[in-house]
């Protein structure tokens, strides 16, 4: 559906995108995650034809966005992070105006507007002025507007920012409904728990490069694997440390109070073996578990936030 290859974009001397590669399959609900300034919005603006890349290609359904960006605009619907409204335009006029921007007029446009306003739950507000709607309603209207030409790919840049929890939930349900109807959706958001609940695939961008990507299931497994193994012992810390240092799957060891946190590369069988070793050495282990993985922890790991208070040892590979 969407393929981005070696995408580069520079603002002055600052590289916003540095060889970004990304593939999204048809029907996917793709979560696009990254810290501020990572290049998400730049990527999205290139996707929807608002910016031209310096290098690289974007193809949607095999059509090169760089060469045929007018054609691409017919395939993509865009919901920006912050969007404006027109004063003195009613909801149905707003929809009909954007319909005419895609060459839809007359009865076809009116039917399409009615259907979309109904789907967005705004049909009863069709005669309201747009600026009289609440923020949540405006966001739903913006989503309905982005669907006016029945695009194959819907691109949303932090669409739920500034919404209250109820509006956010309603918006999320609407997005999921669209995905179930077969729309391919790319959504950028900082609300990672929300993305984890609804996305089928996810990509993490950092400093203009894709640092992690794949299906949500794969990513969560990798998150779990990359999470530290936490061992709480009562006394006998030296014995425990000696065993841990000699174990081939242990990479780093951190100690915070009685809790030993180790980065452990082994699978669940290796974990069981390590626990057995500790028990055999009569180390009083009170807790032994993998830290629960989520997108937030992955995000923090990628954006390199370290706990400075933790005492940390590097384990030599030959030990």
């Amino acid at each position, binding site marked *: 559906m969407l393929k981005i290859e070696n995408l580069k974009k520079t*603002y002055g001397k600052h590289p916003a995108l540095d060889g970004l590669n990304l593939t999204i399959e048809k029907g996917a609900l793709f979560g696009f995650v990254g810290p501020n300034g990572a290049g998400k919005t730049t990527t999205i*603006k290139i996707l929807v034809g608002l910016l*031209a890349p310096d290098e690289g290609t974007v193809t949607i359904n095999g059509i090169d966005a760089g060469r045929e960006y007018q054609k691409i605009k017919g395939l993509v619907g865009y919901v920006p992070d912050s969007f404006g409204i027109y004063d003195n335009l009613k909801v149905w006029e707003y929809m009909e105006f954007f319909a005419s921007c895609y060459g839809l007029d007359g009865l076809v446009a009116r039917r399409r507007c009615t259907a979309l306003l109904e789907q967005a739950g705004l049909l009863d507000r069709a005669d309201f002025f747009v600026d009289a709607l609440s923020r949540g309603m405006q966001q739903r209207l913006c989503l309905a507007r982005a669907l006016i030409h029945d695009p194959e790919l819907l691109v949303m840049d932090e669409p739920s920012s500034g919404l209250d929890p109820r509006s956010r939930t309603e918006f999320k349900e609407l997005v999921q409904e669209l995905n179930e109807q077969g729309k391919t959706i790319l959504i950028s958001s900082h609300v990672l728990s929300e993305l984890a609940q609804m996305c089928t695939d996810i990509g993490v961008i950092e400093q203009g490069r894709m640092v992690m990507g794949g299906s949500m299931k794969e990513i969560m497994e990798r998150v779990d694997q990359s999470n530290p193994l936490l061992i709480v012992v009562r006394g006998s810390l030296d014995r425990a440390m000696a065993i841990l240092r000699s174990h081939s799957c242990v990479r780093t060891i951190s100690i915070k109070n009685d809790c030993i946190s180790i980065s452990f590369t082994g699978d669940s069988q290796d974990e069981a073996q390590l626990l057995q070793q500790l028990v055999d050495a009569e180390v009083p282990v009170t807790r032994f578990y993998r830290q629960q993985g989520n997108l937030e922890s992955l995000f923090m790991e990628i954006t390199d936030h370290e706990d400075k208070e933790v005492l940390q040892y590097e384990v030599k590979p030959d030990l």
Partner: protein
Amino acid sequence: MRSNPIYKRERTVGSRSIRIPMILTVFNCILALAALLNMYSMVAQVEVTAEIQYSAFLELYVFGAVIAFVMILFVMPALTAGSISGERERQTLDLLLSTQVTGLEVAAGKLMAAMHHVILLFVSSFPVMAMSFVYGGIRLWDLAFLVLSFLVAALFTACIGICFSALCRRTTMATALSYGMLALFVAGTYGINQFIWSMANVENVSYVNQIGGMGGQVNSGGFLYLLLLNPAVTFYEIIRGQLGRQETMASVGQWFGGRPDNPILGAWVPVSLVLQVLLAGVFLAAAVWCLSPGLPKGRRSRREKGPGAAK
């Protein structure tokens, strides 16, 4: 043929705004007041002298034309300078450009909306302007030619406004630059000629003093033709031609030292109208270029710091 959606929307929004009715009211009030005073003074004169001053009707025509022209110069940049920068400030420009609407359609839609307002302004002033036909002196053809020159002046000033509106992020900056550019064309071209002519005169006087004889006629040279881009000079030439006041209103060829007739001086009005239309096209093309996504890095980076950096 597909109608321009931007123009359609501007019409809808414009019809709900107080701005255009206000401009129409002010413009027509000034014209009507001038006409009423003119008629009143004429009737008062007839009562005293029993003579009708037919030239007074022509003065009414000139007054109406001047008011209309000044209104165009002042109103058009104000109407157009915020047209695209306003969309950017309202954060609606990205929404527009992400649709299948092209930069050309956006710029053309804004231009059509502005021209629509100007035509409305002219049409609304026809009853007052038609008073000059009561006693003759002005032909219908003259009026049509005057309207054509107004349309060209409106197109020219509107394209300047749209160009700076596309170029600048802020409407205030776009408005200031539009008026600045207009001042450059109206006062600047005149000022340059005045300066060059003065310098030439100074040199001529010192040369005459040196040789102690008679100096030749000096003029501002080729700089005079810069006035072809000055809509005020074109308007002056049209009015001068229509009134036939050769003795009181000198032709452009006689300005800044005078010079012999040549084909350009002979066809000053058509040449200047064509040049102004061409220049308007250049300004419009610049606006379209600013709205295209394939803008070179440097230009775009000055206009936007980059969306990622903004967050």
